[in-house]
């Protein structure tokens, strides 16, 4: 079919008309190959302007549209909608920014006119090589797989169970995670086990939630809306179970930082040195006390264990230390509790309340560095530097090490299964640390709780509910999802199977077809970032709306 391009220049009041000789521009472009009509209009983005454009496309039987106006940021979508209304594929359209890039910055009319001609010619040459792109719709499965049945996993499942089937998978033999081991949760000091058990009752009574304990995730294929997951019971010879789900939540929780750090504090050698988790467990078991029985008269709580090695602050240890001080003071009235801290990290109102409570109960806070433990008689000698110079010592009966939070033990395995990368500290990486903190870079795979970094229980629940919000909004039963139209493609005959594109794809959208020896783009997952097109050494990968030809044609005209 013969190409018939319509070129329309917006006067934008005096903004363009006052700076550019538009009539000369129109005359210059009208004679170009493929241009059927070139006109100007007062304000194309106005209601009348849009109607005018629709009529023009129909009247002249236009196959392509070029608009010279403001920044595409402002009105590209406006004119793409015009295309749709007039029956033209919206990708057969190109916008030239002649207001911001020419009119507003070029005082000389002669120069501005020449530049405008060049911008428009570039747009015209480019649009000739545009292809019609379609936004596809795909059917989806609304069900959700939750990996990990701790606080993050169960609170997410409970928020989703009313609208779809939710599978909660945990390799352990029961749900509840670490929060079950705490008497109280800091900083709010609510009864943790009660709350978790309440959640678990909710899970039990929700018919839509299926719990799969002692179960591992073995394989994950597919994409947002259509994942196929293979599960297998621990050590079972039984067949794998296959599930179809539309979204996956990574709620693996955390594990305490490496034990190597602990041995530096004499942990395992010196009696009555406990980790915070051990103390929590002993507390809920009613076994709080010295190892040989008996009540401790003095306890030192050492903060920031493992922080230096890990290179980050675990966020919750300060308040955990204060919580433990409160446990001890309640159980052993008159006990002397000393917190050896570096910096008190207690953001927010709740943490301050707990801090004040710990102080009121008589807890001593010492800013200390270089804390070391040694045995001396029946006591543990804590030596430390106060204010970075004075070395002091304090003998205590018992020491609690506030061990930092590390990534969950399974992080690497699950990361590989899902193609969701691990980043800082070995935690799962968010799609965007600030504005997309509960999504992963793979659409349809979400992160909740400590899997993406250390956090307390309130923040964990907040993340779980946030994931639920994303899924409830984006994966609605019976609703199809729209895919990106501007995707990449890999030409079969040019691809040599080097798989360079696999490494640079941020969205897990490319896979390697072993039998054919080529890479293939999944158009549902592809977001059109163009990384593969830039990295491909053989020119097989290209972005459909930024092909080399389109870009070169545009550049050739603009640099003339």
């Amino acid at each position, binding site marked *: 079919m013969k190409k018939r391009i319509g070129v329309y220049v917006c006067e934008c009041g005096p903004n363009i008309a006052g700076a550019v000789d538009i009539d000369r521009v129109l005359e210059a472009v009208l004679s170009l190959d493929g241009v059927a009509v070139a006109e100007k209009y007062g304000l194309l983005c106005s209601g009348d302007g849009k109607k005018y454009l629709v009529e023009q496309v129909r009247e002249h039987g236009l196959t392509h549209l070029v608009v010279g106006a403001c920044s595409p940021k402002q009105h590209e979508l406006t004119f793409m909608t015009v295309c749709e209304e007039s029956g033209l594929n919206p990708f057969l359209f190109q916008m030239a920014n002649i207001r911001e890039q020419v009119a507003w910055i070029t005082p000389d009319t002669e120069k501005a006119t020449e530049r405008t001609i060049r911008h428009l010619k570039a747009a015209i040459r480019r649009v000739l090589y545009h292809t019609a792109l379609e936004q596809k719709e795909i059917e989806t499965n609304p069900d959700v797989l939750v990996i990990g049945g701790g606080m993050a996993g169960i609170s997410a499942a409970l928020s989703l169970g009313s609208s779809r089937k939710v599978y909660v998978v945990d390799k352990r033999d029961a749900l509840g995670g670490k929060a079950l081991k705490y008497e109280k949760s800091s900083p709010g000091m609510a009864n943790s086990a009660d709350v978790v058990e309440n959640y678990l009752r909710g899970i039990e009574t929700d018919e839509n939630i299926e719990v799969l304990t002692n179960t591992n995730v073995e394989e994950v294929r597919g994409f947002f809306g259509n994942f196929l997951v293979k599960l297998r019971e621990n050590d079972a010879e039984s067949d794998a179970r296959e599930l179809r789900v539309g979204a996956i939540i990574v709620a693996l929780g955390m594990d305490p930082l490496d034990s190597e750090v602990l041995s530096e504090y004499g942990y395992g050698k010196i009696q009555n040195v406990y980790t915070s988790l051990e103390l929590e467990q002993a507390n809920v078991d009613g076994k709080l006390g010295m190892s040989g029985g008996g009540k401790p008269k003095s306890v030192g709580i050492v903060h920031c264990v493992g922080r230096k090695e890990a290179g980050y602050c675990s*966020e919750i240890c300060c308040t955990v230390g204060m919580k433990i001080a409160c446990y001890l003071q309640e159980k052993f009235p008159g006990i002397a509790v000393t917190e050896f801290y570096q910096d008190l990290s207690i953001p*927010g109102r*709740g943490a*301050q309340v707990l801090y004040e409570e710990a102080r009121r109960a008589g807890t001593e806070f010492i800013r200390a560095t270089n804390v070391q433990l040694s045995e001396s008689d029946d006591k543990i000698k804590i030596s430390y530097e106060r204010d970075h110079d004075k070395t002091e010592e304090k003998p205590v009966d018992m020491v609690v090490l506030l061990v930092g939070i590390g990534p969950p033990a399974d992080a690497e395995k699950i990361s590989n299964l899902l193609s969701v990368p691990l*980043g800082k500290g070995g935690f799962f990486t968010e799609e965007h*640390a600030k504005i997309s903190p509960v999504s992963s870079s793979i659409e349809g795979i979400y992160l909740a709780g400590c899997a993406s970094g250390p956090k307390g229980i309130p923040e964990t629940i*907040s993340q779980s509910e946030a994931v*639920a*919000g994303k899924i409830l909004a984006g994966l609605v039963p019976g609703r199809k999802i729209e895919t990106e139209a501007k995707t990449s493609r890999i030409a079969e005959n040019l691809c040599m199977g080097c798989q360079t594109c696999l490494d640079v794809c941020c969205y897990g959208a490319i896979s390697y077809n072993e039998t054919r020896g080529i890479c293939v783009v999944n158009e549902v997952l592809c977001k059109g970032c163009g990384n593969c097109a830039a990295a491909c050494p053989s020119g097989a990968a290209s972005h459909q709306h930024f092909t080399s030809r389109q870009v070169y044609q545009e550049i050739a005209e603009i640099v003339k």
Partner: protein
Amino acid sequence: MSQNAEVADQILVIGAGMAGIEASLTLAAAGKNVYLVEREPLFGGQAIKCEEVFANMECATCMAAPMQQEVLQNERIELLTLSDIKEVQGVAGDFTAKITKRARYVDSEACIGCNACFDPCPVSLPNTFEEDLGERKAIYISCPGALPNVPAIDTENCVRFAGEECNLCQEACMFEAIDFDQKDEEIEVRVSAIIVATGYDLQDVSQIAGVEYTESGNVYTAREMERLYASNGPTEGKIVLRSGKEPTSAAIVHCVGREDIGYCSAVCCMYSFKFVHYLTDKLPEIKLYEFVSDLCIPGKSYQAFYEKLKDKAQITRFQNLAISQQDDTATISFQTPSGEDNTLEVDMVILAPAIVPAKGASELAEVLGIRYGEAGFYGTESGIQSGVDSGRQGVYLAGCAQGPKDIARSITQASAAVGRLLASTD
């Protein structure tokens, strides 16, 4: 569709900062129709006042603008700027809210945002958006790039509204967008749920004992610093003192007002070290001091940011700090942790004031019938919960209205509020 079903699909979001924007976009994706109410003439909240945000030092506008554009283009979201909530009645599932939408006096449909109306305006006054460091006209947009890109007339300062004959802006407008006859509107909406995302303010440092701060001196607030560094700010990103000189030394003071308010504001340590980057970026020779009480840099990525910048400033721990201003300098008097008295004279002092509830927060809480604590933040931080509960069914909280937090947590809480809302209506 029955009227009830229609109401079920309508949601009111109060406050169009990052939290309100995120909540609105997620609700719209779920098929809800959103009234997004913002009291200022522009939206984007506090985040858009920053040139860059920690810890990745991303351009804040570049981060926020695509979300803002999405709000403006989304047919399911009606953004009501210059608007206040006057009354809320009803129950979860069927609230009626009365909103006053103040006149902008510029027709948003007709205006193309060319700004031709500013030049002829005879009135110049300090721009509060720029912390009074720059000026604006009586017809204005708050800063270049502000969205929506439609000016508003400040009737308190416009000479026409004071009774003089002036229509210079109207004459300059080629699009007949300026309409002096626009009236304030009373809008009534019926919604099934409400999300409150009204954000925060910084504590007024002039009220803090021991801190001498005047708007002509060498002591600056964190927000003034943000605008000084902003490329769309009053100095176009040039860091100069009010006297016009470049500072050769600066002290950044953490925890200003913390003792008064009684809690840690969560984000000040991080942005204070961001200022080290700002200042050394523009003035490589500057001598910098950070006055720190406790470093609060939680999470997997914040410490690395601190470590990258800590050697570019002398870090001093302090207690009992006081600040006084001289003609060309400012002096910090403080005690070291071991109790020694000390003073330091610098060209510039930058304060990191406490985060406090937004102006009018308690009044709005009364209108909404929601819980607010001693400090004035909504809801509660106690117990085991995400913080989105307002104490009134059908009303949810998001962002700093509930307590100080960074952008990531505000966004998370906004999605969480939507999660709770959608889960309860499914």
